[in-house]
């Protein structure tokens, strides 16, 4: 299982801030996970297939599309940050 967290605009668009997911065999990295989420359709396709940038983190470290995803990881997706 992996944990996926969603924040801010993305959390609202998807209607959830957290899910546990059995890691699909086809998913080896962040790019693969994004593709799996896009394929869910509806708000997921809109959010992950749309023009807005969505950043990712693996185990609380910023991660690019090539970053590996392993069983037990905490993945997060969120819009570009706007603190300070």
């Amino acid at each position, binding site marked *: 299982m992996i944990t996926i*967290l969603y*924040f*801010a*605009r993305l959390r609202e668009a998807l209607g959830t801030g957290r899910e546990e997911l059995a890691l699909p065999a086809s998913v080896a990295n962040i790019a693969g996970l994004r593709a799996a989420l896009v394929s869910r359709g509806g708000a997921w396709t809109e959010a992950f297939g749309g023009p807005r940038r969505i950043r990712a*983190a693996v185990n*609380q*470290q*910023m991660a690019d599309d090539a970053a590996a995803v392993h069983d037990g990881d905490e993945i*997060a997706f*969120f*819009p*570009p*940050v*706007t*603190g*300070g």
Partner: protein
Amino acid sequence: MAVRIQTADFDAGVEMAALRRGNAAVGAVASFVGIVRDVNEGDRVSEMTLEHYPGMTEKSIEAIITQARGRWDVIDAVVVHRVGTLKPTDQIVLVIVASGHRGDAFAACEFIMDYLKTQAPFWKKERTGEGTRWVDARAADDAAAERWKAQGSSSD
């Protein structure tokens, strides 16, 4: 090094005194306080709510301070960032850097703030007369962080 994420307000003077207490190596302290404005993108803002990613937020700011320590003489630093609902004139973020000399204190303080704006997972949602809206990231903030990559360390 201290990083705190909290809903409560902070007192910069109290934090500054605590940061340098009893340490005679400190010759300079630079600080930055960010404050909620009442206007953004031409619209009146009545309040804003800050969301963050507990755990990653603290770690990312600690990593930024560690980077600053690698580039400048930083004796100690503290970052306090508020979350929850804030109103115009409220304090939102505090960065204080204690150093031997002012050049390092100023530079490290600005570096920490510029990186915090682009790396630390916080998101602002503001309320205007039209309702609420998520604040978009600004290209100017990316540029401010990017310029540190082109520069070496500047002491003195």
